[in-house]
């Protein structure tokens, strides 16, 4: 082709607009394809966010479920403890009053009070009072043999109470591990990534958005962590059952079906023997025998009292828990991050040099694709709070204890309005153990980015 022909050809091409439509269409299609891919990535972020929230919710609910179960077990042991005391009290009361009756019949109670008191004391402490008493010797001795059974029964009561309390202590210490393990499994089955990967990944991303630096946030390296122990959700608050051993204030024979005040002994009555008239008939009768008892209670020491009167129980109620689960960052779905011209690490990109400098540089200074990608779908986390909710078994008035966080209305609580305790719900030894109605509930969800304290209620 000579020079004339080439010039002619160039002139023809200058006026030729064929192919321009296809070029424009291709460019638009390319832009739209990019939009497609980014919409795909955006949907993936939303999907991961929902997955994280689902996992956190499931973990929080699971933890609350097991917390409720642990508290119910402890509460039932409290109930058993209480009913056991009540039952043994009935037996002991009968035996001791029979002995008192025997003493009274033999020694003519009204004529020699001082002698009677000393003899009763001798009976209770295991002495052979009956043999020293003149009169109807035979009848009194048979009754006193019954009376003597109260002593080993009381010892059995002491050892049983200790076993119950030891079991409750073991549960209160071990049960939170169940909460953590099962909550983690719930998060895993809900699609969460290992928390020790997701949370640092999210923190690194969040910090890089705020600060112009990239902080190397990483969790302690646990390379050999067995898969069974890999946490998929982590608690941000205490998972303790938050129960502790506290002394009871009420006597085991407070049976409300005999009257609103029957058996009610307040602190004044316990310390002021001059007010026995306020006591119910049961206390008056019992006081005749129990004042002579050994000071050793079911729980020796300051927490206990004689004969289970002031036994201690595990009481308390947990606060709310907050759990976190998340999805770690992941590669951009379409692999766009592998393109050099979209990768911010190729700084300055060759194409920038080209357009800014208009120098004769090649479009790419490397291959179009690189091995690693910094264009990633960011990590997300979900936070969820949960709390055990329910009505205490020992509530006298359920409306007083139906608020959140009062799952256990403990045996020692008092209603300030009536001055009565909450144990009237237990109607005696024959009523058996009354179950409490505790259930796990999600109380709110804290979303990242919201003001602290802003809660979003979940209504199921």
């Amino acid at each position, binding site marked *: 082709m000579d020079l004339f022909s080439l010039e002619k050809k160039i002139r023809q091409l200058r006026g030729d607009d064929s192919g321009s*439509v*296809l070029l424009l*269409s291709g460019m638009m299609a390319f832009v739209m394809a990019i*939009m*497609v891919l980014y919409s795909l990535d955006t949907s993936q972020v939303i999907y991961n966010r929902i997955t994280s929230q689902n996992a956190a919710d499931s973990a929080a609910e699971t933890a609350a479920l097991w917390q409720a179960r642990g508290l119910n077990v402890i509460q039932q042991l409290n109930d058993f403890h209480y009913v056991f005391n009540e039952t043994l009290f009935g037996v002991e009361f009968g035996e001791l009053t029979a002995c008192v009756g025997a003493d009274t019949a033999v020694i003519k109670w009204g004529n020699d009070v001082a002698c009677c008191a000393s003899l009763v004391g001798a009976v209770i402490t295991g002495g052979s009072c009956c043999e020293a008493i003149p009169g109807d010797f035979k009848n009194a001795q048979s009754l006193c043999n019954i009376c003597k059974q109260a002593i080993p029964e009381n010892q059995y009561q002491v050892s049983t109470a200790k*076993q119950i309390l030891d*079991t409750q202590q073991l549960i209160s210490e071990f049960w939170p591990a169940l909460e953590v393990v099962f909550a983690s499994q719930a998060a895993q*089955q*809900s699609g969460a990534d290992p928390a020790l990967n997701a949370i640092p990944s999210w923190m690194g991303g969040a910090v890089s958005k705020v600060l112009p630096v990239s902080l190397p946030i990483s969790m302690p390296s646990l390379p050999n962590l*067995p898969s069974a122990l890999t946490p998929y959700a982590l608690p941000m608050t205490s998972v303790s059952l938050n129960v502790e051993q506290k002394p009871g204030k009420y006597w085991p024979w407070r049976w409300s079906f005999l009257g609103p005040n029957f058996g009610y002994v307040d602190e004044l009555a316990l310390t002021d023997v001059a007010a026995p008239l306020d006591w119910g008939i049961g206390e008056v009768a019992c006081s005749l025998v129990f004042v002579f008892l050994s000071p050793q209670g079911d729980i020796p020491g300051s927490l206990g009292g004689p004969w289970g009167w002031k036994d201690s129980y595990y009481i308390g109620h947990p606060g709310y828990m907050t759990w976190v689960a998340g999805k770690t960052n992941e590669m951009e779905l379409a692999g766009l991050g592998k393109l050099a011209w979209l990768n911010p690490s190729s700084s300055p990109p060759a194409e920038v040099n080209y357009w800014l400098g208009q120098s004769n540089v090649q479009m790419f200074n490397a291959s179009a694709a690189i091995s690693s990608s910094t264009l990633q779908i960011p990590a997300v986390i979900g936070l969820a709070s949960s709390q055990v909710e329910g009505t205490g078994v020992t509530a006298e008035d359920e409306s007083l204890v139906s608020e959140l966080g009062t799952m256990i209305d403990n045996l020692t609580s008092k209603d300030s309005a009536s001055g009565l305790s909450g144990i009237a719900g237990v109607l005696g030894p024959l009523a058996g153990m009354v179950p409490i109605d505790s259930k796990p509930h999600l109380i709110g969800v804290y979303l990242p980015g919201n003001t602290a304290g802003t809660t979003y209620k979940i209504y199921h």
Partner: protein
Amino acid sequence: MKLPVTANRLNRRRKRTLAGAILAEAALGLCLLVFVWILFSYISYMSTNRIRANMSARYSAWLSGNGVSGAAYSSSAQYSFMNNDTNMVKLTSTKNTLGFLGVSVPSMILPDPVIYSNSVAFGTNYTDISSSSPFPFNMLMVKLPFISPTEMLTNFTLVSAHCAWPDVSDTYNGYLPPSITAIAVAETAWEAGIFTQ
């Protein structure tokens, strides 16, 4: 001198050729745009329904954990999906037993360590495409020349999500778990000195 006549004919022929080329280019460009637009619409549609499936999985799992029957939670799809799309929703619920340190917990130790893992799938299987599938899946019935049907399409016609929720019906309200009883017995034995003698 027939040369000018010949030149005119050539010019007219060249203009007709250019007009056809532009028409063909426009048609090709339009096809390209329409293809991308369809792709965009379909991906948006399936992405949205994938997110809806995730929300639905959470809701159905919660229902299962709270003792709602399968029929009831199957109808829950209407809350997450468009009404016309609910017939393309499939819910499955699997009852799993939670484990402790990788070992399944026997119910004798801790009753009801159960968790429901529910999966919600939206779309249609490849095998169902040929029968009755609503829009836009019925478009896949179009037979393209030289392209044989492939089951790989299933990956583009079905999205799913899953969520797990514990069975919250049993909170050990009315009984002590056997393991707790065993602990109490062991405690009694310990007090009696069996382990120390």
